[in-house]
């Protein structure tokens, strides 16, 4: 920042306003955005409940009782399931995995997608063509099948690796999580495609603009132009898409778990809880609380994420300054 200011002394009067970082300005703006702050607060509450809730619940997650299929009451706020387990405790427990998968896979997709898209868009020409056609191929593949196969294939191998059979490194504590780790990798690897396309599209038009030309004229290299000039300028669209990515990943995880291919009992996520409820649905007795509450918890979380992301975009996108 200071180097830029000193090299352009005629603009030194502008320098003090430029010295405030992107994030500080963004935070100041987002603090004034009611829905976004409400979303953030509720999201933090949700995190606290899923992390701390099970510890303070009077019921343990695996605690069964003779009181099956009880509708919601003061004792069991969300009712009980087939084995007489408290549904509220299970929903809180399931939230941990759903949130973990959602955020971690999004970070994976963000890293891959932004870099891939920026490089492809900036280089242009044949490289861009090749990189984007590969994205097209991956796009056209039945992507959930890809995750399913990845999990089925690699789970055994990953367990062996964690047990120290391959590289001699013992990571035994990770063995129960090998399926979740694969789920993370697979979902993240799927979700970056759209991100790459969005970033590439933006970079294609941005790189023709004069500030990039100016930067190149001053001798900036590719990594500097991409890192300092192009990527900060795509923050808005990227954040706007991230608002859709975390929910999308969580929905896919839920979908896979719903099909019985993601998180499986005795572990629970919101998707697998809905699936358990749906399997018990029959014409004589439908326990709506088994389906309604896990799904509602998920929908509330995604709602908060959407509000937060929308606020973030308004705060951080330089082009969303409205003149209308």
């Amino acid at each position, binding site marked *: 920042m200071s180097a830029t200011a000193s090299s352009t002394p005629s603009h030194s009067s502008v320098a003090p306003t430029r010295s405030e970082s992107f994030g500080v300005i963004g935070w100041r703006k987002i603090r004034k955005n009611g*829905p976004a702050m409400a979303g953030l607060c509720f999201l933090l509450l949700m995190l606290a409940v899923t992390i701390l809730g099970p510890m303070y619940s009077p019921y343990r997650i695996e605690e069964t009782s003779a009181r099956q299929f009880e509708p919601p009451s003061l004792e069991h706020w969300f009712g009980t399931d087939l084995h007489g387990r408290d549904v509220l405790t299970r929903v809180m427990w399931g939230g941990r995995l759903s949130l973990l998968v959602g955020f971690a896979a999004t970070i994976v997709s963000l890293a891959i997608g932004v870099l891939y898209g920026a490089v492809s868009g900036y280089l242009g020409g044949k490289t861009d063509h090749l990189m984007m*056609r590969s994205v*097209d*191929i991956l*796009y*056209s*593949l*039945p992507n*959930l*099948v*890809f995750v*399913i*196969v990845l999990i*089925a*294939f690699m789970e055994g191998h990953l367990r062996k690796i964690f047990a120290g059979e391959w590289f001699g490194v013992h990571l035994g504590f990770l063995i129960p999580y090998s399926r979740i780790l694969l789920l993370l990798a697979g979902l993240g690897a799927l979700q970056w495609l759209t991100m790459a396309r969005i970033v590439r599209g933006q970079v294609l038009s941005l790189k023709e603009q004069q500030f990039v030309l100016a930067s190149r004229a001053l001798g900036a290299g590719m990594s500097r132009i991409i890192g300092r000039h192009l990527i900060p300028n795509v923050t808005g669209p990227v954040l*706007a898409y991230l608002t*859709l990515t975390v*929910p999308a990943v969580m*929905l896919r995880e*839920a*979908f896979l778990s*719903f099909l019985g291919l993601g998180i499986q009992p005795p572990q629970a996520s919101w*998707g697998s809880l*809905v699936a358990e*409820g*749906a399997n018990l*649905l029959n014409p004589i007795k*439908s326990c*709506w609380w088994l*389906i*309604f509450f896990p*799904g509602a918890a*998920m*929908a*509330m*979380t*995604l*709602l908060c*994420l*959407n*509000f937060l992301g*929308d606020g973030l975009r308004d705060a951080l996108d330089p*082009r*969303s*300054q*409205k*003149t*209308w």
Partner: protein
Amino acid sequence: MGTFIIRRLLISLVLLFVISVISFAILKLTPGGSQLWFQLNPKISQAAKENFIRKYHLDRPLYEQYYFIMTDLFGGRLLSSKDARPVIGKIGERLPATLRLNLVALLLEFGFGIPWGVYAARNWNMWKDRFGTFWAFVFIAMPNFWISYVICIFLVKYVNVAILGTSSFGVIYANPMEGFLDHFWHLLIPGTVLAIGGIASMSRYVRASTLETLGEDYIRTARAKGLDPTTVFYKHALRNSLRPVITMVGYLLPALLGASVIVESIFAYPGMGRLGWEALTERDYPVLVTLNLVGAVLVLIGNLIADVLYAVVDPRIRLE
């Protein structure tokens, strides 16, 4: 334009080949593979086993299996490994139902999504916009399968209407109108569930792109020369802001088909999505390979349509 389309079609053929190889490989590599069929039936005779293996060329090397599957597929001779009926026929009888369902969903997405987005942008930052934003986020946040079940339980339990399948079971219609309405009702409920997320995200896209257009210099120019805001909004801004929306057509169709797997299964709707789900659980991979290819063709056609439309509506983009 012509050369662009021809070149893209040629590239699409190459892509299609790569996709077919990959999807074939994925299905072959799935643990269990076709062998599961035997595990499920312990009483099967050795002769029947060998007959099955010969019939589906499972004793040949993989590249020959691929060759046989593809020549059979394009010759229309590929048989389902579940009931030995031609795959083309199985998909053909499901295709109209899926097209109907997706058409309803697509119409709902455009019919409600675009006006909603435009309305929100017109009333930017007013309570109407905030109200619309809230409901858009609620719609986006609700998982498809969850809405399906909640609507199922609600309608069947408390409203007491039939919703599964394509028509009410065992009902003799008094007149054709009643029959039509019954079919339409059975189409509307899964169609709505399928479209809910799409309507909401469509409205968000339209709103965002309209607001972005409103920030452009030429809009300020139009306002500065004294045009009234309504004319500027509808004649200058809207035409440009609907550009990215048109490209969404290309991406919506494959997404809808993917989503219809779960919705069709829950609503017992006899479409391609449900066929795919049945084929996946039954390891019927002649059907699966074909469905994957059909899906891939749709994605590629969708992308091509999106690119061409983009150039048609935006003269600044030149296709070479």
